[in-house]
């Protein structure tokens, strides 16, 4: 089924007939998905439905069997553009940062993305807001699950990508952090940036999202029906 966004805004994400399987196991079957700029979309689905695989394919961390994906009008083959304008927050994507301290990681991000050095003070303020300022010189591998996620959030705030993809973002975060994240996503929308969230717990994030989708039976469906947008899946 095709899920077409309102035509008024230019598309940030365009997925056509995306299929992905591992051996004989089909995970994604000819998926069509579109997401406009300046939007917050939520993708729900049961454990093992294929949400994370979809995100990995979307950001070219996984190869696809067939189909076409464009981010901000550019194909995935334009790797440098893709990496410069997207960011993924996921517990599966933390291997890189484990051997650095948050301070070193932010310094690296600042250099690689050519972010002005004035961002150093901003990151300290944000770290204070998220209650991780005391952890900036600790090896990330030694931090708790939730704190690691907060570090990834801070790095994404620094990069301010056109498309921010968050896989199970609320998992492991405290109530204050969840509220902070909600405000952040709304702020991003006001700035004309897009955010795509996934969750297997319905109700999380849908209150700020324009649209909610459900990944089931290898397909993405709109989840506008009331019984699908609230309660556990």
């Amino acid at each position, binding site marked *: 089924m095709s899920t077409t966004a309102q035509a008024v805004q230019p598309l940030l994400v365009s997925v056509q007939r995306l299929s992905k399987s591992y051996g004989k196991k089909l995970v994604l079957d000819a998926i069509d998905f579109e997401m406009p700029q300046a939007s917050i979309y939520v993708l729900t689905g049961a454990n093992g439905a294929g949400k994370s695989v979809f995100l990995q394919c979307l950001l070219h961390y996984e190869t696809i069997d067939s189909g076409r994906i464009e981010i901000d009008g550019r194909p995935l083959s334009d*790797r440098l553009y893709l*990496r410069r304008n997207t960011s993924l927050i996921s517990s599966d*994507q933390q291997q*890189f940062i484990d051997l*650095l301290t948050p301070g070193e990681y932010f310094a690296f991000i600042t*250099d*690689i993305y050519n972010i002005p050095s004035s961002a150093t003070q901003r990151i300290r303020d944000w770290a204070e807001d998220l209650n991780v300022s005391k952890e900036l010189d600790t090896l990330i591998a*030694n931090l708790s699950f939730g704190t690691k996620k907060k570090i990834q959030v801070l790095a994404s705030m620094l990069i301010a990508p056109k498309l921010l993809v968050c896989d199970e973002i609320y998992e492991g975060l405290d109530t204050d952090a969840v509220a902070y994240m909600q405000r952040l996503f709304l702020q991003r929308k006001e700035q004309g940036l897009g955010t795509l969230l996934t969750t297997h717990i319905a109700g999380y994030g849908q209150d700020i999202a324009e649209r909610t989708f459900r990944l089931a039976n290898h397909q993405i469906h709109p989840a506008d029906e009331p019984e699908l947008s609230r309660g556990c899946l």
Partner: protein
Amino acid sequence: MNLSLFRRLLQIAYDDPQGSILKQAVIHFIIFAITFSLVVAGFRSMGIERVMEIYVWVHFVIHLIFIFFTAAILHSMDKMIGFMSHTPVTAPEVFYKVYAAASFTLSNGVEYALILIIFFSFGAGLWDVLTFIFILEAMRFTRVFLEFVLAWFKTLTNVRLYLSAAFFFGLLAFLISVKQGRFSWEMLDMNMLLQYSVLCLFAIGMITGPYLVNRLLIIQKRSPELYLSLTRRIGRASGASAAAWGLQALYSMQLMRMLRDSAYIGRYVRLCIIVVILTLVNVMFLQQYEETPARTLVDLSYMVCMVSYITYQLDYGLVKHSHLAQFPIRMRHVQGAIDSLHGMLLLMFALLMGLVEILSNPATSSQWMDGLSAFGIFYLLSIGIPVPDSKISSYQKLGLYFQFFFLSLPVKIAFQYNVLNDWYIQLAVLLAAGLLLYVRKYRRLK
């Protein structure tokens, strides 16, 4: 708390309420004591001193096996420490009573009774027998102490790395003494070495054992701040050299991560150990003292690059482990950073080994240049063979290894037969290896 009550606690801690492990140990030692007394009776002609020496060595092997089983398979000490930390037993009490529980057993009583009967019947002196029994008990005490030490090691991060590094430096020191002719097998009295080691560890255990157990009972995860700061400084200093290309952040961060990655450094230490052992075998058994320093340095470069190729290129996947593809950095730059940093770390080791080599056989500057050129050529050849990103089978690995072998062997032979003596020929071969690397690997990277 008396010993029998402590023993009951130990049985609960080991999750061994029926005492099956202890029963097995008792049976084992009785069988051992009877068998060995028969052996002693049979080898009366060996002399009492020789029998004592053999007896000590047999005990040594049994204790080693015991340590292996308790530390690596049963994890008895970890279980015991975890249990005892919730009981009102003091650290010295735990330390000494664990030893006492191991020592005051029926099997030991039977064994010592047999020793006294047999040795006195062979006419051994009282002082000799008492010293002998003391050595056996010191060995048991040392075993218990080492079990605590191993349990403490497990609480440290990167313990295998520290042990491997210590082993490497020990080997290197041994290699230096062999190279300088200070060592010969005749000099080693293994019996004395064993006895002195046991006595030293016994003394260390007596002093430090209770403190070690105290630390284990209240252990907390250590934060390696010093290592973090050291690697940060090294990374920044090395990254400065790449500033001209705007790649300072990439180089400094990647070096920092390589130095902190126990998987990478562990392989590096393993590589060093393999090369030192190969060199030792070469020096001690293949009699290559007459070799020229140039040839030795070329051989060394070949060995370092070959082991690195097998350890890192075929087995590890340096680029894949860098996780740098998630950043907006050209893969060509990523590959270049990893290849040059890894090469730099290998070169440091090759230079260290070169220094050890020339301790016994000083080399001229041109011989050093030959060694460096050889290193450059072999390294470029080793990184120039494209290895698939996906998991490769042993069969594919063998094929890839032979690729390196067929590319590098002619160069090694050419050095051996002085074909590559002149600097301009070496430069030409180096450029050819660089070109091959570019064509086969870098050209397709974006």
